[in-house]
């Protein structure tokens, strides 16, 4: 297993209160595999990604019983060893390409610097490598682009530069946090194709964080659904999307406008009433409790057990939906 995470917890400081952003997450990622972590804002998906890279904001507390990349325990690494790993064996792509690139250096400066730092090659070799990678992510006029500054590129081009930067050292694992959310639909499709092609060419493991179930359907091998700091459901793409077992997953899928709706505006979307709660204290009970349409009295008393469904996914629920229920809207 490329990545193994057990009982990951992240606690943030929020106006003097402790905010439990990630509350015991387990993840596995194999080489060449795409795992999508899906959830809405505030569910802890970005904090999970940052915790893996040991890049949490100041004041955040992290704990885990296991946080291993290729057998290396990341939480015990020195800063020095960690930064040798980041960008070389593990890369990350963020949502906003403008803030991830340094505005006062050219694209070429930034790409060469990443490569030289990790490999110690000459500037000319780094230049050749940068052009090669830029072309592999579909950038035309790569040599010209190398001389440009980030603000001279469109959002789609900047995101390609970030992908190129992430791929410079042929990482074994790439963590993508909403890399296409700020982009137009056609650009999104192009960027996702480039990522998937790069992944299959290099057998990279990809951890892909998104709120968009449409994207999940197109790229995921496995899906983990996060809600209020916990993974509530986890399984193959087909199992989770076609027969969701957790009421939250089902609600989330049903709230996406679909072509089958007839589109005349006549059919109402299923929505999930209420808002995501914030957790300041430890609470082992189901986080979806306050909004769940299927809530039972046991849900208010006991932590939900993790069960395996017929379709093969794991679900943390006292009363998981069976395949029949999952299909009816």
């Amino acid at each position, binding site marked *: 297993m490329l990545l193994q995470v057990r009982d990951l917890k992240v606690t943030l400081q929020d106006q003097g209160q402790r905010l439990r952003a990630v509350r015991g997450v387990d993840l596995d990622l194999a080489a060449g595999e795409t795992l999508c972590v899906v959830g*809405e*804002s505030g569910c802890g998906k970005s904090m999970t990604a940052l915790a893996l890279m040991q890049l949490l904001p100041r004041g955040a507390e992290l704990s885990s019983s296991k946080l291993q990349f290729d057998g290396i325990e990341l939480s015990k690494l020195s800063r020095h060893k960690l930064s040798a790993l980041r960008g070389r064996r593990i890369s990350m792509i963020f949502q906003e390409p403008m803030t991830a690139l340094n505005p006062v250096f050219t694209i070429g400066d930034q790409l060469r610097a990443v490569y030289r730092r990790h490999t110690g090659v000459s500037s000319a070799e780094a230049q050749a490598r940068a052009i090669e990678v830029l072309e592999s992510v579909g950038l*035309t006029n790569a040599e010209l682009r190398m001389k440009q500054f980030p603000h001279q590129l*469109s*959002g*789609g*081009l900047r995101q390609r530069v970030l992908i190129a930067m992430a791929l410079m050292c042929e990482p074994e694992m790439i963590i993508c946090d909403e890399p296409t959310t700020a982009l*137009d*639909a*056609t*650009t*999104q*499709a*192009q960027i*996702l*194709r480039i990522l*998937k092609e790069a992944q299959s060419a290099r057998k990279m493991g990809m951890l892909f964080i998104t*709120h*968009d*179930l*449409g*994207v*999940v*359907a*197109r*790229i995921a091998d496995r899906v983990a659904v996060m809600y209020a700091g916990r993974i509530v459901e986890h399984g193959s*793409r*087909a199992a989770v*999307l076609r027969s969701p077992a957790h009421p939250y997953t089902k*609600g*989330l*899928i*049903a*709230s*996406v*406008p*679909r*072509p*089958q*709706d*007839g*589109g*005349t*505006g006549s059919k*109402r*979307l*299923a*929505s*999930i*009433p209420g*808002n995501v709660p914030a957790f300041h204290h430890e609470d082992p009970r189901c986080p979806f409790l306050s909004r769940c349409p299927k809530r039972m009295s046991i849900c208010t008393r006991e932590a939900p057990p993790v069960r395996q469904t017929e379709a093969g996914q794991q679900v943390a629920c006292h009363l998981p939906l069976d395949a029949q229920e999952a299909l009816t809207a």
Partner: protein
Amino acid sequence: MSKPLLEARSLSHIYQLRRGLLGKTIPLRALNEVSLNIGDGEILGVVGESGCGKSTLAKILLGLEKPTEGEVLLNGRPLSDYPRHERAMAVQPVFQDPYGSLNPSMSVEDLIALPLHIHKIGTRPERRQKAAKMADQVGLPRRTLSANPSQLSGGQRQRVAIARALVAGPKLVICDEPTSALDVSVQAQILNLLLDLRAEHDVAMLFISHDLSVIQHMADRMMVMYLGRVVEEGGTQSIFANPDHPYTLVLRNAMFTPSDESGVPDLGLRGNFPNPMDIPSGCVFHPRCPMARPECARTSPALERRGNDDRRSACLFPLTAPENVPA
């Protein structure tokens, strides 16, 4: 067809951009001969990507920008003839960002009642009563009336923006990406709310979105825009079933839904991102079009009616033309 509520005739808009402090100005053609009609209680969807001119269109229809050419008629009377407060009574906006469009120092009640206050409708107690009723209708709990926007979630703020838009009884609401900043489960609540309010108040909407699935869900008719031009328009269902313009087809193929697991498609788009400061010759879409032929670089296609429905498209070789449909 009866007289439309809102009619826009051949709107063009050019921004003059200045390079540097004393540099010469460069024209940016944001809109190019865009015409549209919206009937009472109708939802017209506008879809297109960044730089297509959809937000400029919204500003012009709200009277916030004067078009360089063309005119907007509201109830048959030029929008520019309306006194400002009368125009604001009839046409109201709902914008994308529920964080930036609400005054943070006002209470929710005052925010909702503000249009009534400005238009001097009713006494203060009457205005408060009306604001509370509007809050009920958009699903805001009564306790939020005394809160500030900073104490509300994104979805609740958008409900405040919608309540404020509707409180003075406008005939038309211009929604510019109203759910783009919201989570999907919250987006579903807001879309349902807008449809309920349309049914209740018979208010018409211009609904702008980059998200085709949202347009398909909401709009009776739709327009597809590319680089300031309308490339296709007509009934939403008809366009989805059989896109006429290659760009519409590309957009439809780029729309991802949870039920489609067919992998990431190759859209066949060529070239780089369109630049509104350097609009191509001929058909504006030809440099990227997967089906472009040499003629497309020379001849600019007119927006023409096809077949017998009200569909119009601007393409020299439309997809639904008999010779382009595989036997």
